[in-house]
């Protein structure tokens, strides 16, 4: 004990560089100060619901006097769009430290299906949902629009609505709808070659694009 009190502590005796030591002290102080704030992050579930599980193609056929639209479905092999969107949103939104995000597990997703399908935005969420808030991600459709009309561009698209709700009341705290598009890099048939590489890569880019927009919009929101 006496030895410790007699020891002179000067920078030259310090084994760590001064700036590193200061940095460690700063981190400790900051963590201690921020701990209550971090602890009070609201726990929020991200639940994704696909109204149409397959990749949807809107084939707009140009006729002289009218336009005819055909709706086709292409199942994407091996690609779980719902999981991919949930993961991308989770990654993007995790930068917002006001909220502790996590994806809905299979039981929660199942319990939330009636919530997505109900017509009125009312009522509490099922009791099995244990979270402060739930972000309901309702994907109406994702896919591509192709057309023989010269003024209609061939594009990937996603049509999605997001709604942050309080589970106990079902009250809507924030909502936003996105219709995001991306130019198709080639013919639809060509994009299906090589295990649908073009389709999957394209829709993944749209998914990243929309997730960034969601993050930006959510950041602005006073939730």
């Amino acid at each position, binding site marked *: 004990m006496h030895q410790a009190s007699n020891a002179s502590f000067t920078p030259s005796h310090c084994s760590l560089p001064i700036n590193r030591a200061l*940095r*460690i002290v*700063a*981190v400790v*102080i*900051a*963590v*201690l*100060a*921020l701990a209550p704030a971090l602890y009070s992050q609201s726990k929020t579930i991200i639940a994704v619901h696909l109204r149409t599980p397959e990749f949807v193609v809107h084939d707009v056929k140009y006729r002289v006097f009218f336009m005819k639209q055909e709706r086709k479905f292409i199942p*994407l*092999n*091996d*690609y*779980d769009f719902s*999981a*991919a969107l949930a*993961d*991308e949103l989770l*990654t993007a939104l995790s930068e917002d430290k006001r909220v502790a995000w996590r994806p809905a597990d299979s039981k929660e997703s199942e319990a939330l299906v009636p919530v997505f399908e109900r017509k009125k935005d009312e009522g509490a969420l099922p009791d099995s949902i244990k979270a402060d808030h739930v972000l309901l991600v309702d994907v109406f459709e994702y896919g591509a629009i192709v057309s023989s009309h010269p003024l209609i561009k061939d594009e990937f698209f996603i049509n999605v609505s997001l709604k942050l709700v309080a589970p106990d009341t079902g009250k809507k705290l924030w909502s936003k709808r996105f219709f995001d598009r991306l130019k198709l890099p080639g013919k639809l048939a060509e994009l299906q070659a*090589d*295990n*649908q*590489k073009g389709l*999957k*890569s394209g829709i*993944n*880019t749209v998914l*990243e694009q929309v997730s960034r927009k969601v993050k930006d919009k959510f950041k602005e929101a006073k939730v």
Partner: protein
Amino acid sequence: MLALGLLLLALAAPQADTGSIRVKTDVAAVQVFLDGQEVGQTPLTIPSVAPGKHQLSLIRAGYEDHMEEISVQAGATARVFVVMKRSQSALPPLPVQYRAYHQHASGGCRGTLIVNAGTVDFRSDDGKDVFHVAVPTIRSVARSMGSAPLIVGGLVELAISAKLGQKLLRPADVAACRIEAPGRGYGFWAYEQDSAEPAEKFVVDAVVSQKTKELYELIYQLWSDSLEKGKK
């Protein structure tokens, strides 16, 4: 606010030195290796990656290996999305002959590997290393996951790497095929005669990886069939 400022001040310098890589695949749960080290399964974000070029390898049973060089910049996230290709499951007509690099504890040798319905035979080009493995006696057929010991250059390379402060383990072994037979284990990379033979150093690239996977799947299938026959 003061605390936040301190935190930012403290963390700003180290964070700016590295970048990150976001890896996604169409199929979920693909094993991801960065420079030969397993880092997790897709989808994932690999944080604190040193700036520069890195070798990314994606492996999943039933799919072809994907190998890609990726460039990382400090303070930025490099994004990779890979559509995995399903591997062909049909067996080629036997016997099949491969050019192969056989791993030794240090270094290795090049030679010819012939796979028959019941045997795996290897003969090195200089004739010093010859062996014959009966397929039913094989204990396991596996793919090596993770870094391997030095494969080329032996002690000289070890010394150079140590001096330069580089990793002593070569990040190249994610694609190797390993056979465990009674009393001895064998590690191989298969390659195409024209693509890898002339190189002074043995380089594990996408072609080598693919050929090795074919070799692994062939031997595994034969071994698995022999186990089934043994049961009957």
